[in-house]
């Protein structure tokens, strides 16, 4: 059984730490049951269930540390894994950046466990895929999709009295619909904690409509356009930015957050005043594990950017300890919330005289870390908007744009939606942005 209760987990952690002969030790127990189903060409291709439970133990001797892992929990195994961690620690080179283990942490209470997802069966997965395939066949399009659901827990403890337990569920569904003639392609996604809130049939309907509508795309000249980026399109760029959002690289002078002359750009207004991005493990829409994955430091609600001004940057405990101004350590977050407006995408379109609607951005890579210039492409539903209406489908574009510049050119914001982004869930709004740089055309459908 992959999901242990709080008390079962605590019992194992307490026991393994008792075996420690090191100066300090910590332990992390994680378990998940993950189910998946994949289909393509209107037929299921693979499905599976993976059960995984693992205990990782870290032993410390001064600046030396060793980590050993194990997936069995008899007394003998627990002792063995601790001995191995100690052996590894003694053999390891000093880590000059090692920080002492944390003491007791006060973790936020997070409600992210949904029974409907926890109880998912292979039949439900098969039905979820069938709902999508049947919808595709009815409209004579070809479906390819993937559903992955997980019920998981994590528990942490150390010899300084730290303990935490967190259980969660999640389900993520993506689907690509292509017309039989290969001229149209549409995509849609759903990311939830509670599977009861997911309908693969209706998500598939959105993708099917886009596939049918996107046939016979016309070519527009590359250049600067007003764009309406749907949440998944925004998340590609904002996710990349937040992944590179970090105090140390900024202070070291090798980040887009570095200040000319040294230091970082905290306190500077770098973005449009409507930009407000924060993290909060207890957020009801995107509940997340309330501690940092690396050192188990408690996560709190943190404003990263507010009123367009840089408020905070993630800063490791080591880097905080090196700062002259006694800067606070702030762990990397486990979720992200970008505050949006109250308009639907349709309303954003209605208020647009000329522009391009982008469903999704794809294959995004860093071109220049100094300006955070990114390149990538539009995909699976790109349309030309004129006088408040979608006029016709257009060929996909390659863009070269920095999210920093994009977040300065905001014209309007839509409602935030939950998307799967860079390994965690995020609330991201659709954005209407002026002067977005498309640099070439792509023939890809």
């Amino acid at each position, binding site marked *: 059984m992959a999901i242990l209760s709080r008390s079962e987990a605590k019992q194992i952690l307490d026991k393994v730490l008792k075996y420690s002969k090191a100066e300090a030790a910590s332990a992390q127990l994680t378990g998940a049951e993950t189910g998946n189903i994949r289909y393509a060409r209107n037929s299921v291709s693979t499905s*599976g269930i993976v059960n995984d439970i693992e205990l990782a133990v870290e032993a410390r001797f001064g600046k030396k540390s060793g980590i050993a892992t194990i997936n069995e929990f008899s007394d003998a195994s627990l002792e063995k894994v601790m001995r191995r961690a100690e*052996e590894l620690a003694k053999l390891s080179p000093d880590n000059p950046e090692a920080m002492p283990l944390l003491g007791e942490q006060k973790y936020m209470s997070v409600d992210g466990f949904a029974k409907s997802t926890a109880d998912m069966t292979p039949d439900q997965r098969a039905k979820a895929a069938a709902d999508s395939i049947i919808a595709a066949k009815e409209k004579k399009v070809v479906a390819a999709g993937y559903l992955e659901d997980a019920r998981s827990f994590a528990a942490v403890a150390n010899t300084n009295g730290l303990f935490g337990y967190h259980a969660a569920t999640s389900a993520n569904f993506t689907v690509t619909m292509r017309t039989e003639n*290969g001229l149209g392609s549409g995509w849609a996604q759903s990311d939830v904690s509670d599977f009861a809130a997911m309908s693969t049939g209706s998500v598939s309907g959105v993708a099917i409509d886009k596939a049918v509508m996107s046939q016979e795309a016309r070519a527009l000249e590359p250049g600067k356009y007003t764009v309406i980026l749907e949440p998944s399109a925004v998340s590609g760029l904002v996710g990349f930015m937040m992944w590179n959002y970090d105090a140390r690289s900024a202070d070291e002078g*090798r980040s887009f957050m570095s200040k000319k*002359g040294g230091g970082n750009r905290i306190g500077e207004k770098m973005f449009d005043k409507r930009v407000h991005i924060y993290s909060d493990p207890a957020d009801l829409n995107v509940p997340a594990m309330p501690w940092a*994955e690396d050192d188990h430091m408690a996560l709190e609600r943190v404003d990263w950017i507010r009123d367009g001004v840089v408020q905070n940057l993630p800063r490791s405990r080591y880097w905080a300890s090196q700062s002259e101004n006694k800067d606070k350590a702030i762990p990397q977050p486990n979720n992200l919330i970008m505050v949006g407006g109250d308009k639907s995408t349709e309303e954003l379109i209605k208020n647009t005289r000329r522009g391009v609607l982008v469903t999704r951005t794809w*294959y995004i890579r*860093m071109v220049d870390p100094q300006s955070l210039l990114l390149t990538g492409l539009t995909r699976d539903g790109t349309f030309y908007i004129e006088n408040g209406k979608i006029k016709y489908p257009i060929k996909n574009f390659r863009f070269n744009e920095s999210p920093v510049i994009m977040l300065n050119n905001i014209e309007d914001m839509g409602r935030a939606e939950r998307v799967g982004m860079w390994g965690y869930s995020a609330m991201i709004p659709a954005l209407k942005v002026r002067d977005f740089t498309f640099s070439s055309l792509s023939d890809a459908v």
Partner: protein
Amino acid sequence: MDRRKFLQLSGAGLGFSMLPLSGIAVAESKLTQSGLDVAVKKELADAALNTATKLGASYADVRIGRYLNQYVITREMKVQNVVNTESIGMGVRVIANGTWGFAATNDMTSDGIARATAQAVATAKANSKQQKEPVELAPVKGHGEVSWRTPIQKNAMQIPLAEKVDLLMEVNKSALDAGASFINSMLYLVNEQKYFASTDGSYIDQDVHRLWAPMQVTAVDKKDGGFRTRNGLSQPVGRGFEYLDGRAEDKIQSQTVLYRDSYDMVEDARLAAEQAQEKLTAKSVTPGKYDLVLDPSHLWLTIHESVGHPLELDRVLGYEANYAGTSFATIDKWRSGKFQYGSDKVNLFADKVQPGSLGAVGYDDEGVQTGNWDLVKDGVLVNYQAIRDQVHMLDQKESHGCCYADSWSSVQFQRMANVSLLPGKEELSVDDMIKDVEKGIYIVGAGSFSIDQQRYNFQFGGQLFYEIKEGKIAGMLEDVAYQSNTQEFWNSCSQICDKRDYRLGGSFFDGKGQPGQVSAVSHGSSTTRFDGVNVINTKRKLG
């Protein structure tokens, strides 16, 4: 997308921010111990094959795997992390009622194996209800009991950790002494000990070794607020630790030192530091059309993205439509026999045998003996990459032998073979090539890369860019990226240096599939010229 299974390297400004990890953390000493005896593996495999047959499978294969990894990660004069992992288990794949079924277990007792085999057969039977057409496997004759090993001279797993740390510290010192602000350097070592057995009568024991020693050197101009990076020019290889010997005969003096079959990491770190600083003040490129002279350390990635991926048959057929995408190189284009993928100088071949390559194995993960085959001949598309249950769709009778699984617990599927560009037939050196270029750019090292989901439109950066003016190198350029369309690009190929310049590059962590699997693959070429390619300037200023 579970971040916990990845080693995080965020904030280091690295091009690759997540590394896949599998297996359990073990002591270094484990890496030097040998795994199960072949006789024991055969016994376990036979038990699984017999169980599968008894339960009604018409075909079964078993993979018993022991996968070892060691990652050593450093920055400046600090070791940040050392990770040793070992993963042992067995995967069994069967065909029952004409349908695939797969199960895996790390319980290597006869009971555990029987249970997993029964589960694989049950899955096949359950899934057969949805199956439209039965699986059609290209025939493979049994090979009996055979073995294969990567031809290494020094087993990297047996080199003491202290020696590896010492090397990386010397590398980092070399960069810092030469004026680098920062350096991140790493060693990734992989050893796959895999045993394959099938009801075709094959018992294949293989010992596969791979190594990669990447680094990134950064120069910061704090006053001006600028910074530049230069990545190491090493290539991931299917070689032992001898790759890091940096032998003199493997060095090519160009604008920087280029490397053939071994790599001088300490020297390259010094050059990287000097060049990262030079990049801070290099001339920003004027956008426009240029003739590109692409070094193999750069061209491998363009080959990987614009030839390797679009010619994977599962992508062409739509099985990857929801993730990696499909392909412009459709079956009708191939069947026409006239699809001009590139100019008549372009010959691209796939193989699983080049010595030193990441893809080299004796047999693939479904027991097919490896070889090589043409993909593009005299510019025309002639074939794809396909495996046993796919080749019949191409009216072919033999699998290409490019089936791979990244673990005993992953189901094997079609992966990219080594895909390489044949050297030019006529004698031609890089200097001779550059002499004839009036307005061009010479590009060394792989940089930023992006391509659309059907592999038409791409954009590539690089590590080092040198302007060519009237046949001469005229100094360093910065802010260079080129954009093109796959078919247009390969048709603009006008010259390829001869075999003396042929070198391999490669990708150590190439991702594909849902759930994702990684594989490693090499791409060989000699320096090649492409005419009139669109170059953009990537410089932007933030307010």
